[in-house]
């Protein structure tokens, strides 16, 4: 592999408190140096990065890659390429595939497919329970030894408090977090946020309390067990209030929020727009504001996309019958820049922290830093480049996004994984 010198980019690395115009040298898969006027090795490729941002590679803790089972909507390879195109150097794949990732062989399969794809890294998340049936614990030890970085029954909630308690306790043996999709199954059954908009549309609602009850339970169990609870896709003000208090008490909790929950409200469902149907549902403007505040002050640690591909015509039906979920890998960075950084809600360094450094810390993954000697997972993007979201151009096999046609800023120029360029804009 030739050394790569990124010359005169704006190097933003919150893990080192770095935000300056600098060169970055990558050699033998590692960050070899940051500074001005670094010597250029004879055989190096030199890229003029002036005007671009050079950051530690983005990491998405929550994606659904659908393989095995639904290869027509996404595969590990297409998902990993979509990730790379979106500036992600690593993604974590949820286990709600068919069959479920609840054993060593299933985890190994994902690792193997990801290696073959040679795009973004894909870290498997193992199931909490066998078949995600919520009854018997999966073999966490086997899952971890095969490459799993966390456990979750995402796609469905862990209804049994006892099972969640056992998972939080037992996972500590392996130092992995337990990630939960918080939803009280007896309060759900709706198709959108329960409020004025659902009342107008006559659609069954999912109250905020359905999430908050499980958040509260999980926090109590994390306190009881001293385990690490990771709360997926937080959507309500009440949830972040609970997390903030738990963090003050020293409970080991981390949390994510999706781009869509940071940007859209339940009004996006008006007109029965099935691209605004997701679970947890889009909530109110007050919730959006609380989520943004929580992301800013660190109550919510990371932005994760909950990338959920669906067949092209699955959303072409009545709202009640359309599946939950939207894709997000190829729009997350630009939406963050456009909707959070440009309006002054987050600084660019904060956005990079929430999409790279913090996710690496939360799941204890390599990357999330450009410290010399660490693995060279790097994202290069032009923060000013303006483009229009066109799902037809996605690398993902699916098109289900509520952001089609949006004008956004921030275009990925290069995605580098272990020193190798896995995506370069205009190179296809």
């Amino acid at each position, binding site marked *: 592999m030739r050394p790569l010198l990124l010359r005169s980019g704006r190097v933003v690395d919150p893990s080192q408190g770095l935000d300056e115009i600098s060169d970055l040298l990558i050699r033998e898969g590692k960050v070899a140096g940051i500074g001005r006027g670094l010597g250029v090795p004879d055989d190096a490729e030199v890229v003029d990065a002036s005007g671009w941002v050079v950051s530690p590679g983005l990491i998405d803790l929550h994606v659904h890659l659908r393989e095995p089972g639904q290869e027509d909507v996404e595969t590990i390879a297409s998902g990993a390429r979509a990730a790379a195109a979106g500036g992600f150097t690593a993604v974590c794949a949820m286990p709600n595939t068919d069959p479920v990732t609840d054993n060593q062989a299933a985890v190994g399969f994902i690792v193997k497919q990801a290696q073959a794809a040679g795009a973004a890294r894909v870290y498997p998340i193992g199931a909490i329970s066998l078949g995600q049936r919520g009854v018997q614990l999966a073999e966490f030890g086997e899952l971890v030894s095969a490459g799993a970085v966390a456990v979750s029954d995402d796609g469905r909630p862990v209804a049994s408090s006892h099972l969640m308690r056992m998972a939080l306790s037992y996972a500590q043996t392996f130092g992995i977090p337990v990630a939960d999709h918080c939803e009280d199954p007896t309060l759900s059954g709706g198709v959108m946020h329960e*409020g004025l908009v659902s009342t107008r549309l006559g659609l069954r609602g999912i109250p905020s309390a359905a999430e908050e009850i499980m958040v509260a339970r999980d926090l109590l169990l994390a306190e009881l067990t001293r385990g690490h609870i990771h709360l997926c896709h937080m959507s309500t003000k009440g949830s972040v209030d609970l997390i903030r208090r738990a963090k003050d008490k020293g409970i080991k909790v981390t949390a994510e929020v999706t781009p869509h929950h940071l940007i859209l409200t339940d009004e996006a469902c008006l007109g029965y727009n099935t691209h605004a149907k997701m679970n947890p549902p889009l909530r109110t403007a007050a919730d959006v504001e609380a989520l943004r505040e929580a992301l800013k002050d660190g109550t919510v640690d990371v932005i994760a996309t909950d990338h959920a591909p669906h067949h092209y015509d699955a959303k072409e039906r009545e709202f009640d019958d359309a599946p939950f979920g939207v894709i997000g890998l190829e729009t997350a960075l630009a939406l963050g820049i456009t909707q959070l950084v440009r309006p002054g809600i987050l600084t660019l360094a904060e956005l990079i922290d929430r999409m790279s450094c913090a996710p690496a810390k939360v799941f204890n993954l390599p990357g999330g830093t450009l410290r010399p000697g660490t693995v060279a997972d790097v994202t290069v993007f032009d923060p000013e480049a303006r483009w229009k979201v066109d799902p037809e151009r996605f690398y993902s096999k699916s098109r289900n996004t509520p952001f089609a046609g949006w004008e956004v800023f921030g275009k990925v120029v290069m995605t580098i994984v272990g020193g190798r360029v896995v995506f370069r804009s205009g190179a296809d």
Partner: protein
Amino acid sequence: MSERSLGKDLLGLESLTAEQITLILDTAEPFKEVSERPIKKVPTLRGKTIVNLFFEASTRTRISFEFAEKRLSADTVNVAALGSSVQKGETLVDTARNLEAMRIDMVVIRHPSSGAAQFLAERIRSNVVNAGDGTHEHPTQALLDLLTLRDKFGRIAGLKVCICGDVLHSRVARSNIWGLLKLGAEVAVCGPPSLMPLGIEELGVTVFRRIEDAIQWADVLNVLRLQLERMHAGFIPSLREYYRVFGVTVERLERAPKDLVILHPGPMNRGVEIDSRVADGPHSVILHQVTNGVAVRMAVLYLLAGGRPELAEAAKGKGEVAE
């Protein structure tokens, strides 16, 4: 959309203006008389093809639409497509494509999913009339309720109307709320809080917790049908208790400061939401509602087909209509 037309479809009353609603009611007036004649037929929609597409069982609404269509001389086809929820999704897209291919002029759709009428309307060129979609809207029911009230009181503005019962699951309630508010009525709802949708006050309606208070306040009660399955889903403890606490009974009405007018969209559960003596009593206009249903539906079909309101009178009077 001009005030003198409805546009392509009638999907709900939320999106209509007061002028458009009044236009429908005014257009219905001359059609009322058609149903009173020995030969109950005018040639207004001769040559038009209308499909009544019912994904949900409904005898009354379907029959009312069918009468309206036949009295306007349209060719009608009834399609009953009751199926499982998965089949239903596929059917609606495919059905839309098929209807388009058959060059249907109008579709009257009843469907268990909210938004289904809009879904269809956005995908076909034919006019679409919503005959009830899930728990969203049932615009022709609200229009016939409005027409009945206008017949009774000579006006809608300023009337105090309380909608009683399972507002949460009621498309009739939603359409009535929009229609009444737009025409200047004061609107209240009353029923078990477990059957009240969140944010209902924000629509501009008053909420009464007790039926006695509603009766003290109202000029009109619109008593909704209580779906018997609500009890099994845990929304209320029992039908017996529902009747005891929320039933519209003669005893309760006797304590009202004035004579109330009682509407019910049917079919009634006698002894659950309404006392038989009330349903059959002098304050009930329930059969008048049924009669008006046909006239209002004739008006809607006529206007959507491009009929000019000022010609509706002529349409019923003579055998010829300029189209």
